[in-house]
C-alpha cells in the first residue's frame, strides 16, 4: 500500500523556534490550532505543517523560545517617498492624554513623508460591507453569513481547516491594503514619480500582518512594503510625539473607525445583524457552527483570533483592558455619527475601489495521489492504532494528540514506540486518583 501523507504547499513560516531556549515541552504543540508543530526527539519543537500565524505558540511559551518573524526595516531602502498607516490600536497605546492627532504628527516627525489615518478608511469600509451585504441578499444561494476579511489569521485558519467557508469571505480588500494602494497611486501622481519609488509601511499590533506581505490571500501582491510591530517602534515614536511642535490637523475621523482595534469595533458601524467573536477558541467554535448552518439570522461575523480583538495582539505595549478603556473614551469623544458621505462610498464601491483583485485559494493540506481505497485503508490503520492508545492526549510522543500520533505512525513519520504508554503495552498510572481504564470513551472500534 502506498503511503498517503498530508502534503502542504511549501509552508511559509511565520514563527521561528530558538533551539537553544526550547526545552522540548508540549505547550506550543498543544496550542497550535492546525497541529503544525511536533516535538522532535523530545528535545525541540519544530513547525512541520501549515502555520496560520495566530501567535498562540508565542503566547504560551514560558521560555520565549518561539518568536514571530518580522520584516526588517530594509523595505524603506531606495524610497523617494514613504507613506505610513497604523492600526487604530496605536491610538490606545500612549494613555488617555495622547490624542490620535499627536500620534499622527509624531509619525510624521519620525520621517514619513505621508501619514494616513486608517480610521477614516475603516469607516468607509463599514459602508462597503453594508453595500456588499445588500448585494449578497439579492443573490440566490449566496453563502450566509458573511465573514470579515480583515483578520489575516482568520482567513488562513479558514483556508486550512474550513475550506468550504472561504466562499463566505467577501473579496473586499482590508482597509490597510486600500490605503497602501491609494497612497502609492496618489503620491506617484503628485510627485511625478514611479509607484515603486514610494514605500508603504503598516504599523501593526499583530505579527500576522507580516503574512499579508509574504503571502497575500486576496491580492496578487501586497501594496504594503513593510509591516512594523507597535512594540518595535514604540520608544522611538513616544520620543517623537513628545517633541512635536507644529499644530496641524491630520486626524479627521469619527469614533466609528477609531474603535476597530476592539472586538466589535468593525461591526459597530454596520447597521445590520452582525456578531463580533474574538479569541482563537471561540473563533473555531463559531466557524464550526457556520459550517453546520447553525448561525441563522446573522448577516456578517467579525472574527478576531486575539481575545478582545487587535488590542490583544502580540506587538502591543499597553495592557489590553487599559487600552480598551482608552479606545472607548476616544470613541465617545469623537462620536459615533458617520463622517463619510454614503453617496461617496457608493460611488467608489461601484467603481470597484474596495475590492481585492483575486479570490482566496484553498490552503488545505491535500492527500497526495492515493485512491479512496488506499485512504480508507490508511484511516482503518489509524483507527486501529488509536483504539490501542490510552488516549491520555499527553503529547509526550512528540505529536499533539493521540489521533495525530496515530496518523504520524501510519504515515511513517514516527515509530509506535514513541508512545510511552505503548512501550509497556498497558496504561501507566500517573496522576492523582487516575482511572485504570479508558472507560469514558464513546468511540469504540468495530471489529
Amino acid at each position: 500500500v502506498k503511503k498517503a501523507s498530508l502534503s502542504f504547499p511549501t509552508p511559509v513560516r511565520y514563527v521561528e523556534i530558538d533551539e537553544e531556549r526550547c526545552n522540548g515541552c508540549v505547550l506550543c504543540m498543544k496550542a497550535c490550532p492546525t497541529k503544525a508543530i511536533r516535538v522532535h526527539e523530545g528535545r525541540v519543537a519544530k513547525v512541520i505543517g501549515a502555520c496560520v500565524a495566530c501567535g498562540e505558540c508565542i503566547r504560551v511559551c514560558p521560555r520565549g523560545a518561539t518568536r514571530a518573524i518580522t520584516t526588517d526595516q530594509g523595505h524603506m531602502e531606495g524610497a523617494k517617498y514613504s507613506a505610513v498607516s497604523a492600526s487604530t490600536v496605536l491610538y490606545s497605546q500612549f494613555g488617555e492624554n495622547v490624542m490620535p492627532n499627536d500620534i499622527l504628527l509624531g509619525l510624521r516627525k519620525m520621517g514619513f513623508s505621508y501619514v494616513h489615518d486608517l480610521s477614516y478608511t475603516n469607516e468607509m469600509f463599514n459602508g462597503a460591507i453594508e453595500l456588499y451585504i445588500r448585494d449578497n441578499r439579492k443573490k440566490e444561494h449566496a453563502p450566509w453569513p458573511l465573514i470579515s476579511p480583515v483578520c489575516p489569521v482568520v482567513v488562513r485558519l479558514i483556508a486550512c481547516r474550513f475550506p468550504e467557508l472561504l466562499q463566505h469571505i467577501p473579496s473586499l480588500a482590508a482597509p490597510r491594503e486600500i490605503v497602501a494602494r491609494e497612497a502609492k497611486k496618489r503620491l506617484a501622481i503628485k510627485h511625478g514619480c514611479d509607484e515603486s519609488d514610494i514605500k508603504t509601511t503598516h504599523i501593526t499590533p499583530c505579527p500576522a500582518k507580516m503574512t499579508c506581505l509574504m503571502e497575500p490571500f486576496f491580492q496578487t501582491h501586497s501594496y504594503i512594503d513593510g509591516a512594523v510591530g507597535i512594540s518595535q517602534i514604540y520608544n522611538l515614536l513616544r520620543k517623537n510625539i513628545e517633541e512635536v511642535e507644529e499644530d496641524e490637523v491630520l486626524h479627521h475621523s469619527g469614533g466609528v473607525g477609531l474603535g476597530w482595534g476592539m472586538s466589535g469595533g468593525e461591526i459597530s458601524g454596520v447597521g445590520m445583524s452582525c456578531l463580533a467573536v474574538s479569541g482563537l477558541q471561540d473563533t473555531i467554535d463559531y466557524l464550526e457552527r457556520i459550517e453546520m448552518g447553525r448561525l441563522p439570522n446573522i448577516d456578517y461575523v467579525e472574527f478576531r483570533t486575539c481575545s478582545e480583538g487587535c488590542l490583544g495582539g502580540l506587538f502591543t505595549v499597553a495592557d489590553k483592558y487599559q487600552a480598551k478603556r482608552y479606545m472607548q473614551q476616544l470613541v465617545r469623544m469623537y462620536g459615533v455619527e458617520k463622517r463619510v458621505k454614503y453617496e461617496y462610498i457608493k460611488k467608489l464601491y461601484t467603481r470597484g475601489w474596495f475590492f481585492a483583485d483575486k479570490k482566496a485559494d484553498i490552503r488545505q493540506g491535500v492527500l497526495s495521489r492515493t485512491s479512496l481505497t488506499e485512504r480508507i485503508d490508511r484511516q482503518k490503520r489509524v483507527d486501529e492504532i488509536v483504539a490501542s492508545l490510552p488516549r491520555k492526549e499527553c503529547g509526550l510522543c512528540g505529536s499533539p494528540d493521540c489521533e495525530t500520533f496515530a496518523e504520524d505512525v501510519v504515515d511513517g513519520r514516527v515509530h509506535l514506540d514513541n508512545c510511552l504508554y505503548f512501550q509497556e503495552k498497558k496504561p501507566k498510572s500517573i496522576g492523582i486518583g487516575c482511572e485504570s481504564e479508558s472507560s469514558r470513551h464513546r468511540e469504540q472500534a468495530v471489529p
Partner: protein
Amino acid sequence: MPQLRKRYEIEPKDFVRAGEVSLQVQRTLRNLGFDEDLIRRASICAYEAEMNIVMYGGKGELVLTVSPNEIVLNVNDDGVGIEDIAAALKEGYSTASAAYREMGFGAGMGLPNIKRNADFLDIHSGHGQGTCLNIVFNFAGDLE
C-alpha cells in the same frame, strides 16, 4: 472491498457533548479527502440525527460506514419514536417542548434537513418503538 466502520454512542439529554459525534464524522470524512460539499451534507445529516437522539431518543448510536462508492449513516435509538413519519418530514412540523424551543431547537427542520441533504433516506419508527434511520450518500466511485 475495504470498508471503514466507526460506531459512536449517543447519550440522551447530554447537551454538553451534543454535536461531538457529528464533528467526529466530519473529521473522519475530511481525513479521507472527500469533496467539501459531500462532507458538509453528511455532517449536517449526522448533526440533525444526533440532536434528535439527544432530544427525543433513549440511548442511541450512530454507525458511519465508508466504502469506495458510498457513505452510510445508520442511526438507531430506543426513544419515543415518531408517530407520524410523513408529518415529521414536513418542514415546520415539530413535537418539541417549549423548553427545547427556548433552547433554539424544535424548528421542525431536523428530518426535512436530512432528507434534503442525503441521497437516500429510510426511516423505521413508530410510537414507542424507537427510531432507525438509514442515510446514504453516493458518489462516483473512486475519486481518482
